[in-house]
């Protein structure tokens, strides 16, 4: 054992003569939650699909439990929560789990006791006999997480686990994922919700145009890439106005659309100046992963987005 669940060394993927993953290296240690972040089209999904043997690796070493990712027998140790709902619409909630257990060759008696546990875990015990089509979006996602756990995997791979969910449903999913980590499972998740990454991930990489821009723990990344405090301001008339407002202060300016982001070690003097101008709408907050993300991947709109 090398201690790493996943290893990527010089991994490349070429797609119709276009390089979508341009040589990435990373290791994922057992027992952590590892985030793959990036704008739409950055290569997150391709990296995941390659890991799951759904997309051949063009070049480089990409291993899962010390086996090449093309070796599908290791899937017995992996659970997958895809982004797109692919539950079986013809089956009830528990039959979905039962049939899925069949794909792993799990004995019927064992599957049945696991299904009871998993329905409880997913807060779906009362819905076991209901058709999947009657479930809400949050319930369906929880069922997909439960389905991914049917084989008691060591590694769980989640593609945008909370996209499209309301805040309640999202927090319930997050809580469940944290409890999985407590059980010693390794989690990999892709997301473009920075809040989700900060909430869940021990380590992450930020990917753009098929390259890793940076990697590390969320807090360390914030400390490394951006100043600790941010004032986000709307209502400034132009760039000159923004520059004048920050005159004499140690502030780095940046903007997205009509919002100006002012980064600094101590933003209190700037807050005081803002308070004097009633036309300004502003918020003073600690720097977040989102600031790191926007700084590294650029603030312009993506065409693919």
């Amino acid at each position, binding site marked *: 054992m090398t201690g790493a669940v996943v290893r990527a060394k010089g991994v490349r993927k070429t*797609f119709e003569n276009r390089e979508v993953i341009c040589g990435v290296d990373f290791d994922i240690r057992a027992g952590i939650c590892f985030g793959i972040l990036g704008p739409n089209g950055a290569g997150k999904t391709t990296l995941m699909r390659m890991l799951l043997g759904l997309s051949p690796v063009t070049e480089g070493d990409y291993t899962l439990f010390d086996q090449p990712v093309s070796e599908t027998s290791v899937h017995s140790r992996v659970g997958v929560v*895809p982004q797109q709902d692919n539950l*079986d619409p013809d089956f009830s909630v528990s039959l979905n789990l039962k049939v899925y257990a069949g794909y792993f*060759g799990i004995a019927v008696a064992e599957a049945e006791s696991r299904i009871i546990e998993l329905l409880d875990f997913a807060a779906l015990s009362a819905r076991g006999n209901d058709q999947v089509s009657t479930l809400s979006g949050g319930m369906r996602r929880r069922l997909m997480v439960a389905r991914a756990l049917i084989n008691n995997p060591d590694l769980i791979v989640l593609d945008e686990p909370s996209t499209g969910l309301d805040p309640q449903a999202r927090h319930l999913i997050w809580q469940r994922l944290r409890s999985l980590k407590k059980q010693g499972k390794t989690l990999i998740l892709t997301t473009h919700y920075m809040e989700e990454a900060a909430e869940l991930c021990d380590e992450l990489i930020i990917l753009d145009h098929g390259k890793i821009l940076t990697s590390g723990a969320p807090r360390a990344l914030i400390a490394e890439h951006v100043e600790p405090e941010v004032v986000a301001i709307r209502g400034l008339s132009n760039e000159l106005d923004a520059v004048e407002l920050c005159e004499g202060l140690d502030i780095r300016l940046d903007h997205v659309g009509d919002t100006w982001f002012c980064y600094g070690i101590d933003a209190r003097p700037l807050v005081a100046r803002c308070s004097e101008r009633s036309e300004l709408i502003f918020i003073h907050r600690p720097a977040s992963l989102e600031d790191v993300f926007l700084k590294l991947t650029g603030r312009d709109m993506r065409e693919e987005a």
Partner: protein
Amino acid sequence: MKAFNLIPNHVLAVWRRNFLVWKKLAAVSMLGNFGDPFLYLLGLGYGLGHYIGEMGGIPYMAFLASGILCSSAMNTATFEALYSAFTRMNQQGTWESILATPIRIQEIIAGEQMWAATKSLISGTAIFIVAGLLGGIQQWDTALLALPVIFLTGLAFAGPALAICAISPSYDFFLYYFTLAVTPMFLFCGVFYPLDTLPAFAQLLAQVLPLTHAVALIRPLLTEMPLTMPWLHVSVLALYAAAGFTLAAHLAARRLLR
């Protein structure tokens, strides 16, 4: 060959999933399986048979029943492997959800092919019973041997249909396959009349089509017609099944594992 590296339990798990879906609506589905051939045999067998009398030396009802048995095996397997499989592959993401497990693409194709052939067998059995009741079966001692041949026929048609499914952009595409392959076979492979009524070139062409060989096996098993070269016919059907499977597995991998 890599495509034939199959774990039986994996193939069975895919088959079982489809079986469980079918089981939910089995009653309705069976009704169709009995109703359709009943109408065909009644309408054509009695109606047309009244004027025709005998064909190929046997009563028209017996001639037609064995033909309908074969064409229904073709249709059932083709429909399942085109429309239903496409829904699972493209609309519902069922195949993709299975690929996240230790099951591989060639095992999904094999399971789908087995399932489509099973549906041929189910509908074939229904027709078999109807044909028996209407007097379409003359030789009861060999008749039951027709059932495994129906399954083989199902495999022979499901294989190529799955290959078409794997390259199809949408459901509309399947119409070409029906017009260019299925309907010509239905009309020119000896289902309704003996092959020797066709011009020589058409007879030759019919010899390379799988339905001809299914008819050549099943008709003699059910009727008093003599069975000739059974292993040739079995081999042609097996060849279509194997070649269709290999091609479908390759094309499905190309489509899904990009």
